């Protein structure tokens, strides 16, 4: 799995193997480890989310200019802190009211700032506060917690730098002006707020993971960044089962990522994937995570999705897929997420566990909700083909083709239409 990070320019990540890619990967690792800690500490010290976040971003941009040329310093965290402090001085000099903050900033050694108690959790919950729009939560989390630059986020979401910059500015302004607290929620509030955080990470992961082979490598990096965030969350909240479930789910997807596309960049369906290429170590690791989560006795939607993905990943072949078990897991998932898309996935499990006739009955019920969704029609086409109704199957495939612009999916449908 490549984990590239572009340098200060606008160039996309170079392919793995080159020395540039090695530097990029090293930079990625450093930023992920250091940037969030630094932001969290500065925001806490300064009591100013906007300023704290901005200083770290400026330090990161500065590091992206210097490190590729001069090498990564021995203590990158200290380097970033020093730079952020220098930037802070520039900011604070202009504002006499900040004298108190200034003294805090100058007086605190790095070891104390990025100390034992990890307040990145506070940072994560603030960035993913429900008073912020989902896309703002996403952009802010990637920038403040991982230290991605605005340019990198823009590349990952296939949008412009100014769009992302504006999103972040607005989000930070809302945090400050509306009094969003810098705190980890407690008690029953925690469950709801944690759902919000998990949704943000899952969305970031999917944005990256579902990118097609031909799209920018930056999108792939996003999936890895999201996985890293999930890992951080598991580490910071070891007694919460759902982050374990989400991390397992991501690991299981990434374990199979290499076999999703053929040499020409064409999409390979799960049933046709070369299972020898799956990362068995990652799959076993995900299994352990799910066991740990299950032992906590609090099931949830991410654990269930992880369990479904594990059923697929652990089957020796497509024929050995445990469909009855998967069907039961989807039934339980529906209790948490009663959405048409989950029902569509359950219909696929019904088809494989019980046959095409009951699956088609279920699909008919979803017609109005999913008529604009290409995978609904592609699934219906398969079921109709099973039932020996090729003309209707063709019409459904045709409809699916009309509804998708994804080149890899189009190629697959066109092949099916002949």
């Amino acid at each position: 799995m490549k984990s590239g990070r572009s340098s200060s320019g606008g160039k996309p990540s170079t392919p793995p193997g080159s020395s540039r890619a090695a530097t990029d990967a090293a930079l990625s690792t450093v930023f992920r480890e250091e940037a969030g800690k630094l932001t969290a500490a500065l925001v806490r010290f300064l009591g100013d989310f906007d300023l704290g976040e901005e200083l770290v971003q400026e330090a990161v941009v500065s590091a992206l200019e210097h490190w590729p040329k001069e090498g990564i310093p021995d203590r990158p965290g200290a380097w970033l802190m020093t730079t952020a402090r220098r930037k802070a001085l520039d900011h604070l000099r202009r504002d006499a009211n900040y004298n108190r903050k200034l003294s805090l900033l100058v007086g605190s050694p790095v070891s104390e700032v990025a100390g034992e108690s990890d307040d990145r959790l506070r940072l994560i919950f603030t960035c993913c506060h429900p008073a912020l729009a989902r896309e703002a939560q996403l952009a802010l989390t990637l920038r403040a917690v991982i230290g991605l630059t605005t340019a990198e986020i823009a590349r990952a979401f296939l949008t412009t730098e100014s769009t992302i910059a504006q999103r972040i500015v607005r989000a930070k302004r809302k945090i400050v002006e509306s009094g969003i607290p810098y705190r980890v929620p407690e008690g029953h509030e925690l469950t709801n707020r944690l759902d919000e955080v998990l949704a943000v990470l899952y969305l970031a992961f999917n944005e990256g993971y579902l990118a097609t082979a031909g799209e920018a490598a930056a999108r792939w990096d996003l999936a890895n960044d999201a996985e890293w965030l999930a890992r951080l969350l598991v580490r910071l909240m070891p007694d919460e089962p759902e982050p374990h479930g989400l991390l397992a789910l991501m690991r299981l997807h990434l374990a199979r990522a290499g076999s999703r596309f053929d040499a020409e960049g064409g999409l390979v369906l799960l049933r046709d994937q070369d299972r020898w290429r799956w990362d068995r170590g990652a799959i076993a690791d995900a299994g352990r995570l799910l066991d740990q989560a299950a032992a906590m006795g609090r099931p949830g939607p991410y654990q269930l999705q992880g369990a479904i993905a594990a059923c697929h990943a652990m089957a020796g072949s497509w024929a050995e897929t445990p469909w009855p078990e998967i069907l039961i897991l989807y039934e339980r998932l529906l209790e948490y997420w009663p959405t048409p898309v989950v029902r569509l996935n359950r219909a696929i499990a019904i088809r494989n566990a019980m046959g095409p006739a009951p699956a088609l009955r279920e699909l008919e019920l979803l017609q109005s909700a999913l008529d604009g969704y290409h995978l609904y029609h592609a699934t219906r086409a398969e079921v109709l083909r099973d039932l020996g109704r090729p003309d209707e199957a063709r019409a459904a495939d045709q409809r699916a083709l009309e509804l998708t612009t994804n080149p890899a999916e189009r190629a697959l449908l066109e092949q099916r239409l002949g």
Partner: protein
Amino acid sequence: MKYMLLFVDEVDWERVPEAESRVMFEKVGQWWGQHSQAGLIESGAQLQPARTATTVKFNGGKPVATDGPFIETKETIGGFAIVNVPDLDRALDLAKSWPAQGKVEVRPLVERGEA
């Protein structure tokens, strides 16, 4: 921080059977009393129904009074409360406990003279 909770009604309480609306008004009264006593509510009011509203518009700088609320929807502003709480989460807690449901918009007030 001070916030305004703006209470939005999605039902016309004058059309709700009296037995039902009386229960609701009692609950609202309790909510108000409880949080005022706790010192969280600074002020506020229930408003007369939207049919009593008059809106002044400035058409090209010339003020004109017209009948009705400024925005014509099924949702109407039923009242407001000014609350003083440490942060947005506490303001949202209050809003979430509002008995009459509908919608509650939560907005910070502009506070001057405090650093």
